[in-house]
């Protein structure tokens, strides 16, 4: 059976070899064939010219995580349509993926509004927000740099095998920290700089001692605002 594989701008005819698991699916009205066992985001990224799926918490070097939800696309299987994270959703035979519908764009715009309100000073977020038409968030602005995508933690664990840092606490109190909330990184950190390199927002920088300086996620915005109203001075 002949199908089309997109290679750059060229359409190439491919034949399903026996024993090779080839999956045929559709992305934004373009029918493509890829080898099975990968995610929608991986498949789409390998094919220039097909849909542009934004993402912040995905990196090919580590396992997908699905935290930023920016890569959300609409996946249609049979009569069922739902919103899924492209970085985690496996390609399936007959799947129809829509990467740029109005509802998808609205969702991404909303997520970017939330992220921009949290991190108004991060260049990458500013650019993405502009692309999706967010001008000024309708919320009290925070002053964080870290979006809690967990890339640094996963890189440290999966690539370096050290787990010198991890995500602690839950909800709005979640942050990247040293195990047991130690004041500084212990000898587990080898100072490789992997976390600083992989960080999409520049929230982790290498310090003068050759060890990374972690972002300090602190008090929720509403509470900061309330504290300011009570006349407190916020330092960090």
């Amino acid at each position: 059976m002949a199908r089309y594989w997109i290679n750059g701008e060229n359409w190439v005819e491919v034949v399903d070899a026996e024993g090779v698991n080839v999956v045929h699916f559709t992305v934004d009205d373009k029918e493509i064939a890829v080898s099975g066992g990968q995610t929608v985001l991986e498949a789409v990224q390998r094919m220039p010219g097909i849909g542009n799926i934004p993402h912040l918490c995905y990196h090919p070097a580590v396992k997908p995580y699905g935290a930023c939800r920016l890569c959300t696309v609409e996946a249609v299987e049979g009569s069922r349509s739902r919103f899924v994270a492209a970085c985690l959703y496996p390609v399936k035979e007959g799947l129809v993926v829509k990467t740029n519908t109005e509802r998808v764009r609205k969702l991404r715009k909303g997520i970017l509004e939330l992220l921009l309100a949290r991190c108004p000073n991060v260049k990458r977020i500013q650019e993405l927000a502009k692309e999706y038409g967010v001008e000024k968030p309708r919320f009290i602005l925070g002053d964080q740099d870290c979006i809690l995508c967990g890339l640094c933690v996963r890189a440290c664990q999966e690539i370096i095998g050290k787990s010198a840092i991890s995500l602690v606490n839950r909800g709005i109190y979640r942050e990247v920290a040293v195990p047991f909330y130690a004041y500084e990184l212990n000898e587990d950190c080898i100072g490789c700089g992997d976390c600083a390199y992989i960080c999409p927002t520049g929230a982790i920088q290498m310090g003068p001692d050759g060890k990374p300086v972690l972002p300090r996620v602190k008090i929720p915005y509403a509470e900061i605002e309330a504290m300011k109203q009570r006349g407190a001075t916020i330092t960090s």
Partner: protein
Amino acid sequence: MSELSQKLLQIRSPADLENLRLSILHKRDPSRTCISVCAGTGCRASGAEAVVDALIDEIERRELQINVEVKETGCHGFCERGPLVVIRPKRIFYQRVKPEDIPEIISETVLNGNIIERLLYVDPATNEKIVYEPDVPFYKRQTRTIFGANGEIDPTDIEDYIAAGGYSALSNVLFHVSPEEIIEEIKRSGLRGRGGGGFPTGRKWESCRLAKGDIKYVICNADEGDPGAYQDRSLLEGNPHSVLEGMIIGAYAIGSHRGYIYVRNEYPLAVRHARIAIEQAMDYGLLGEDILGSGFNFTVTINKGGGAFVCGESSALMASLEGKVGEPRAKYIHMSEKGLWDSPSLLNNVKTWANVPLIINKGANWYSQVGTANSKGTMIFSLVGKINNTGLVEVPMGITLREMIYDIGGGVPNGKKFKAVQTGGPSGGCIPEQYLDTPVDFDELNKLGSMMGSGGMIVMDEDTCMVDVARYFIEFLKGESCGKCVPCREGLDRMSEVLSNITQGKGVREDLDLLKDLAGILRDGALCALGQTAANPVLSTLHYFRNEYIAHIDEKKCPAGVCRELIQYSIDPEKCEGCLRCLRACATGAISGEKRKPHTINQGMCIKCGACYDVCKFDAVVKQ
């Protein structure tokens, strides 16, 4: 117990089980007086333990041990009237019993057969005193198929359960029914997951049986965390063997040899009773190796949860079981194919498991007679909030909300007007009065913007501010969000920020659109069901009670008089008698005045605690 006696005790065949059941029944005299005291968590809180101690003391003092048996059972359901005492075999029903009443109960009722009038339940509708338990309107209108045994058996004694026909479903399937037939039976019964999602149980079992993998797991989800819900807890406390039997049947059906009960550590009694049940089932050969001599092996371990609400979500629960942080992961591949340690895992709610032995014993046809077209069987709801008969009720699917709230629940107390009922826990919606005649099942509640959830039902009266309710639930979910994905972590925080502004009179009209936008982000974008359904309380109150939001925003008024920033207390000089009661009650000294002269409130000092409003006997304190 020595190894030998343990061996002797073990049941090795279905015939052994039947013989044991008969011998237990033979030993028991059905006419012997049995005083069963509800020792569920609700009645314990109102002092059931002291009642049991007093009973045992009194019986020992009068040397009546041979004639009278005392049974500490699980929750009977009528928690409002606890501690409950039922005297069998006549089933005389005494409520709000105190230890002081015990000598009288023994001397009058047990020995002389006289009824003690003051301990009887009075039906508020007819003012009639009701003597026998089945005649109490609260119980009369229920269909207690899975919850009914709670009042009859001692959860710490396996023989009680066996005497009531327990484990007969298990012995039947192990020898006469193939796993495929069990799954077919469950499918035909129409049972749907009782944990909230309502996924067809039979289909889940089938996909788990067909999933590839040598090792498969069976898990019982007892991580109930909804505010106001305690039915899973009460079932596990009151009838742990029914849950265990369901799990063993499930394990046999899918080919699993290892099971877990994930129960929260805040439920110490449920943990203890489940542990005792497992130990006893092991001793009797109903669990462990070569169950009933059939060659089938299955063991169950209890895992105590740390109390995170999100760990009730299947993937987070399994992460927690694996010893990792309890965070959900994407479930694009079902847990029944790749769950605990990437092995096929069958996770069901406590109530779902308890339904299984019943379906096997009585058949799918019998089971599917009760209920609506797509929701079969009964459901246990916890009826709480502003309602007369607080407690657990088991009703057939398809009963209307009105029947549940008025006929069983006894309506709203103190003559207040009903305003809304919140179903399905924090992620459910608030349903207003005009929909009270809706039949309750999975699909109908979804249509109203709410859900079945795990069966919580919080009734609200006219003194409830719906904006404040929405704020409360969003606050709760914000605190329980794991913080992994952006829509849930940031979205809920911002939502609570907007709602707090509205309740403080700082809201603007645009906030309503903002709330809707945030709700859309949560529904489409969040990683797990906690986030996806989190906006329900906001959306449903916005839909049904929009005028309250408008009043808070435009008029800066809280119609229900709840939101502190928007209300003011003042004293009506016409009505004030100058009794000084409010002046003494005021914690901040904001009230001034002399005896027999009208008092006044200094608004600058008033903290709006409402103490003056509560103590005034002349209705002179006005809340605006």
